[in-house]
């Protein structure tokens, strides 16, 4: 776009020779950044999507789909996925305010979700014997989590970056420990111990939401509630982001000292970000508890925290659309992985895409595929010659992909041992791959591809949770190195 813009611009403001030169220089600098940011091929895809589809169209389509989903889908399982997605989006939004806008790394964020859930559980179940009105309970939770957010934000006034991260991470751990330990509190003055949280047993029998006499007995009720909430939050947060408070949050992220010198009340704004994020998470927690009708503290621990972070970062921290996209990936992906049929296909798709992206040309791509096939046969022959016992085909074939592979793959009897070996070798090879010469790379690629397939069929496909976490971990590292701004985020520069 800028190609034919430059001369125009120069003409427009050709006041003096110097001004001309100045603008030319600026324009060139601007283009330079753009040139660096603009990537070709698959890597340029996110940017292309970003630029070619206007925001209102994106949001409109999303809203339409969500609406149709709620109106026409009757499958309870699918609706539940929809509700989980809604909760995930809320959590991502809240974290996006704290981390994406204000730039505060809050690793205890998920604790607010847990506090919201436990708060609702305690006020609406037989655990203590309260069954307060939903209105009141939700109000108390929002105010309560906001207040807690305020308290946790106090150290953030003195701390920044890494320190804050650890303090909040610790806060999250303390929440878990407190819930676990609060089933058996003894006071010096009392005979009996007091059970507040039921510890690891969790709290069952939580009342569903009830507004104006309408009890939320159907999961669809929660779906609509969340759809409305998310829509409202999207509008509200994007408005805030565009105006005074949002701008001030971003100045803190950019340069807190400069912001302060320009009159931005840094501490107050940090607190405000924390409080807003905490209240959103608390509300989401209450909805979660009411929908599940049971809460367990293990659900509010590190694994969920990493998922939320992965969602926000994957989508692009600082972008609401990114938060939604990340939430979709992070909440739907596990469900897909759970069904082995789908997960196999997904894996194959990812593998082929990766090979295509790394291989660059059709010729190389073909060579890689043939290479993988040959290695497969070679392994089969070698292991067969060494008469290593195999696992009977029907025990490991879980779907169409593995059925197709079953004549080619050699799956040893001791799947754990062989899988572990393959895993270790694979990691070593990938590490080596990233540092070596192109020649060796092209030899390594089929080997890595084969090991990947082998490991997948032998171990990963049956171990959904570990696989998911491994993928998230790898994604975080790779994303930070290749595209730290995430899928829909803008590239950032930072002067240290």
């Amino acid at each position, binding site marked *: 776009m800028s190609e034919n813009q430059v001369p125009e611009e120069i003409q427009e403001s050709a006041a003096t020779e110097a001004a001309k030169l100045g603008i030319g220089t600026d324009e060139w600098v601007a283009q330079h950044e753009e040139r660096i940011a603009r990537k070709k091929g698959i890597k340029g895809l996110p940017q292309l999507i970003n630029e070619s589809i206007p925001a209102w169209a994106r949001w409109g389509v999303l809203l339409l789909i969500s609406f149709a989903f709620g109106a026409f889908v009757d499958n309870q399982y699918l609706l539940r996925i929809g509700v989980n997605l809604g909760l995930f989006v809320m959590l991502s939004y809240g974290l996006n305010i704290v981390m994406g806008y204000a730039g505060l790394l809050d690793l205890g964020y998920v604790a607010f979700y847990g506090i919201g859930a436990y708060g609702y559980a305690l006020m609406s179940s037989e655990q203590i014997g309260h069954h307060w009105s939903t209105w009141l309970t939700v109000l108390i939770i929002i105010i309560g989590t906001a207040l807690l957010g305020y308290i946790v934000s106090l150290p953030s006034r003195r701390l920044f970056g890494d320190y804050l991260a650890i303090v909040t991470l610790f806060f999250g751990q303390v929440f878990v420990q407190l819930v676990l330990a609060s089933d058996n509190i003894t006071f010096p003055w009392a005979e009996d111990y007091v059970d507040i949280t039921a510890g690891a047993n969790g709290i069952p029998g939580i009342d569903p939401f009830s507004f104006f006499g309408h009890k939320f007995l159907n999961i669809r009720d929660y779906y609509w509630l969340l759809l409305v909430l998310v829509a409202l939050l999207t509008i509200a947060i994007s408005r805030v982001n565009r105006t005074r408070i949002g701008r001030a949050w971003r100045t803190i992220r950019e340069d807190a000292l400069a912001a302060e010198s320009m009159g931005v009340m840094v501490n107050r704004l940090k607190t405000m970000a924390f409080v807003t994020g905490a209240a959103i998470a608390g509300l989401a927690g209450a909805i979660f508890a009411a929908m599940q009708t049971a809460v367990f503290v293990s659900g509010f621990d590190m694994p969920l925290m990493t998922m939320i972070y992965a969602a926000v970062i994957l989508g692009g921290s600082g972008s609401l659309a990114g938060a939604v996209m990340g939430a979709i990936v992070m909440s739907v992906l596990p469900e897909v992985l759970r069904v082995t049929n789908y997960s196999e296909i997904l894996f194959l798709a990812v593998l082929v895409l990766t090979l295509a992206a790394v291989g660059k040309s059709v010729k190389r791509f073909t060579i890689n595929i043939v290479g993988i096939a040959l290695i497969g046969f070679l392994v089969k022959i070698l292991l067969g010659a060494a008469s290593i016992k195999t696992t009977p085909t029907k025990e490991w074939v879980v779907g169409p992909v593995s059925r197709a592979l079953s004549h080619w793959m050699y799956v040893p009897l001791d799947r754990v041992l062989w899988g572990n070996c393959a895993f270790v070798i694979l990691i070593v090879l990938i590490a080596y791959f990233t540092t070596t010469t192109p020649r060796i790379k092209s030899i390594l690629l089929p080997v890595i591809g084969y090991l990947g397939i082998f490991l997948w069929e032998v171990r990963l496909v049956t171990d959904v949770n570990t696989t998911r976490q*491994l993928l998230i971990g790898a994604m975080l590292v790779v994303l930070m190195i290749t595209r730290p701004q995430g899928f829909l985020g803008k590239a950032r520069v930072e002067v240290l």
Partner: protein
Amino acid sequence: MSYLGQQLVNGLTLGGVYALIALGYTLVYGVLQILNFAHGDVYMVGAFIGFFVMVGLGGPLKPSVPVAVMILIMFLVAMLGTGLLGIVIERFAYRPLRNSTRIAPLISALGVSILLQNAALLLFSANIRSYDTSSYISSTLGFSFADITIDGVRLFVLVLSIALMFGLARWVNGTQVGRAMRAIAYDRDAAVMMGIDVDKVIRWTFFVSAALAGAAGVMNGLLLRGVSNGMGLVPGLKGFTAAVVGGIGSIPGAMLGGLLLGVVESLAQGYLSTNFSDTITFALLIVVMLLKPNGLLGKRAIVKA
């Protein structure tokens, strides 16, 4: 009195372990100003390596070498292994991000931490392993004075952790790499201009820091705590707390912080409640951060404008 003494001794042992972890945080922070989130998981890997070396040497019941040699090999292999792991982590998760935004290495480290935990889960399953120390180090070993008994394992761990700290101090002050490390911590740009090979020094720093964590992991195993893939999180947090309480970037601070934290935790467990000890440690961290943001022995951070 004897109860108090006993708690103090226990606390010092625990504190030695925390101090070793804290040193790792402080060393890395000193040269790179990043917080190595994956440090707690390196400690976990160290504990696993120690365990498998022990099993490889015949297991706790009938070791194929003398017990002292077995323990020595466990420590050496674990420290070497985690040290190399530290170098690998630096190479792949931190080095590409050296000129990146401030938040990027933190996220990347979070990724490494998740990777390590789940790789361990995949490889070693979720079973909790035990070093079974009592079957090869008699619990009657050790000595007692007044009413305080110090059993052999505790004494060994305490002595070894102090020895490692001395070793570290020697390394930092006495070797060329150690001095270069301090130079980089003091002023990276100047160090580069003086011709110091920054990459090499950072590699060494990660090696040493991770090796200390590995040793701490083995000690943890010897002290009869379970070894499992998620074991790194809480000690990692405590180690960091110790580093911050002492003043991050300060080596004596990390040692002091570790010992202090161990004693506080042990006293809290002994006199207040066993269930809430982490909460109490957390409270200590918050109090120190609010009262002395730079830690007990830390230098004042310089604000540049």
